[in-house]
């Protein structure tokens, strides 16, 4: 961890003192009522009321960048905006996620190691496995005619795929999900630090196990990987494992749950995707645009000014990626869900050096799951009129999604 960036809160507050008052908006990314009502439209509401870039004193104080173009600029600019600290409120505790917390050029050598496993060819080869997982999990609920989608399928599908890819023990699914759900909930930096230690312990245990019993999985493969001609160190392995754990166990689950919630309310779109499965890639891209998951963060490394906002070294910056997809200057009528939208723009997987390394896997998972789900279940709808249980914060989620459909007899259909 770069000590120069570990600025004490007092110094940050002082730097915050000279922020133009017109740029200050009171906005709590964890508890703001508008976000609890709808995490996406809640952020989008600020497009009408807040400056393009504003400062909120909440959660240690941080900048928020609301427009697509400005987010692209910030996220691609590693000279002024570093990834060394990514938590709001900041943790400054020295635990590093490789390569997410590194800046180029150091970042790229580790990124390359992982890209070998997350590139287009490696991911496309996984499709038959994804199809099998989708059927296996849908088998569990198809005959019931109803389910709470979020955990059973929304998380069950991508997290099972990921745990199998990594070589993690599938019988610990619920334990690992519990860890990651707590990590992204509204907890203190101290508690988050404790949860981090637990994840490091899980990964340490996993790599130890793979050293003893190597298998055909990513954890075993990483043990044999080299960076610049030398094997990865234990510290580097655990650090990469920590990142993969957080990235693999929650984000796609949320993207999938958001998209299926929307699809449940659109019988017309269900019919269309059944009739035109070739539109699934457009459907997935529109879902990603309309219902983004991650509110990407940076720490200012070098003072700079954008649109009158004076970013000072050590200050935290948030780019709510949903605000980029919902920016009316980039996507006209952004609230409308339109799979035929021309020139769609989103950065839901972020952009620049830290573009989500799992984006090809996530996209394939969403396409495969939606296709198999519609084949197996057909028409489906929201069950009841529950107030949606949104989880705002750094990674946004929907904690429950009750669905219903016409059960196809007692015996679940098999593929």
């Amino acid at each position, binding site marked *: 961890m770069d000590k120069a960036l570990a600025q004490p809160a007092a110094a940050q507050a002082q730097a915050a003192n000279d922020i133009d008052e017109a740029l200050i908006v009171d906005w709590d990314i964890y508890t703001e009522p508008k976000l609890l009502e709808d995490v996406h439209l809640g952020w989008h509401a600020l497009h009408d009321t807040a400056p393009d870039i504003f400062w909120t004193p909440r959660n240690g104080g941080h900048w928020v960048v609301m427009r697509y173009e400005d987010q692209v600029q910030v996220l691609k600019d590693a000279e002024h905006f570093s990834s060394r600290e990514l938590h709001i409120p900041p943790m400054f505790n020295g635990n590093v996620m490789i390569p997410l917390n590194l800046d*180029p050029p150091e970042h790229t*050598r580790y*990124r390359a190691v992982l*890209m070998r496993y997350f*590139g*287009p060819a490696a991911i496309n080869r996984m499709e038959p496995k994804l199809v099998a997982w989708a059927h296996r999990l849908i088998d569990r609920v198809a005959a019931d005619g109803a389910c709470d989608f979020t955990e059973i399928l929304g998380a069950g599908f991508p997290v099972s795929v990921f745990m199998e890819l990594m070589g993690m023990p599938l019988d610990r699914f619920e334990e690992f999900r519990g860890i990651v759900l707590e990590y992204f909930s509204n907890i203190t930096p101290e508690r988050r630090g404790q949860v981090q230690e637990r994840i490091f312990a899980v990964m340490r245990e996993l790599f130890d196990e793979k050293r003893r019993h190597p298998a055909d999985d990513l954890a075993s493969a990483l043990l044999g990987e080299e960076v610049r001609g030398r094997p990865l160190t234990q510290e580097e392995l655990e650090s990469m494992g920590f990142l993969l754990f957080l990235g693999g166990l929650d984000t796609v689950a949320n993207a999938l749950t958001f998209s299926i919630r929307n699809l449940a309310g659109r019988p017309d779109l269900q019919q269309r995707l059944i009739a035109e499965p070739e539109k699934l890639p457009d459907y997935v891209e529109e879902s990603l645009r309309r219902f983004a998951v991650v509110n990407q963060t940076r720490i200012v490394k070098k003072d700079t000014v954008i649109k009158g906002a004076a970013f000072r070294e050590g200050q935290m910056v948030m780019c709510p990626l949903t605000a980029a997809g919902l920016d009316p200057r980039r996507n006209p009528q952004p609230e409308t869900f339109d799979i035929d939208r021309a020139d769609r723009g989103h950065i839901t997987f972020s952009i620049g*050096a830290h573009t989500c390394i799992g984006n090809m896997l996530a996209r394939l998972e969403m396409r495969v799951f939606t296709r198999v789900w519609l084949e197996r279940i057909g028409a489906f709808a929201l069950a009841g009129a529950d107030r949606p249980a949104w989880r705002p914060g750094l990674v946004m989620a929907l904690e429950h999604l009750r669905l219903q459909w016409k059960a196809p007899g007692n015996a679940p259909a098999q593929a």
Partner: protein
Amino acid sequence: MAKLMVTLRSGECREVEWREGVSVKDVILDAGIFEINGITNCGGCCSCGTCHVIFEPESAARLPAPEEGELDLLDIVPDRQGGSRLACQVPCSQALEGARLRIGSGE
């Protein structure tokens, strides 16, 4: 003039116009050639390796040498050759005039 000769995976050869100040990736995408991953790329930040192209030796020799990060990513490209580059890291300039390249296999 300002032309590049781009060979697609199918073997078809296309003449693509380049312009100063943008990357080879940008001109290829702008020409409607989407074989280099137009959607899944990192936005041209030398971070995903999906815009792999192979220049003919004579053309490659005219280019500025790749930097460290680009070499790291080229290490993971299975069909890497002498003239391999990431298109996002090659700026368009007069040195490119008439250069010949083909799109990497994407494997």
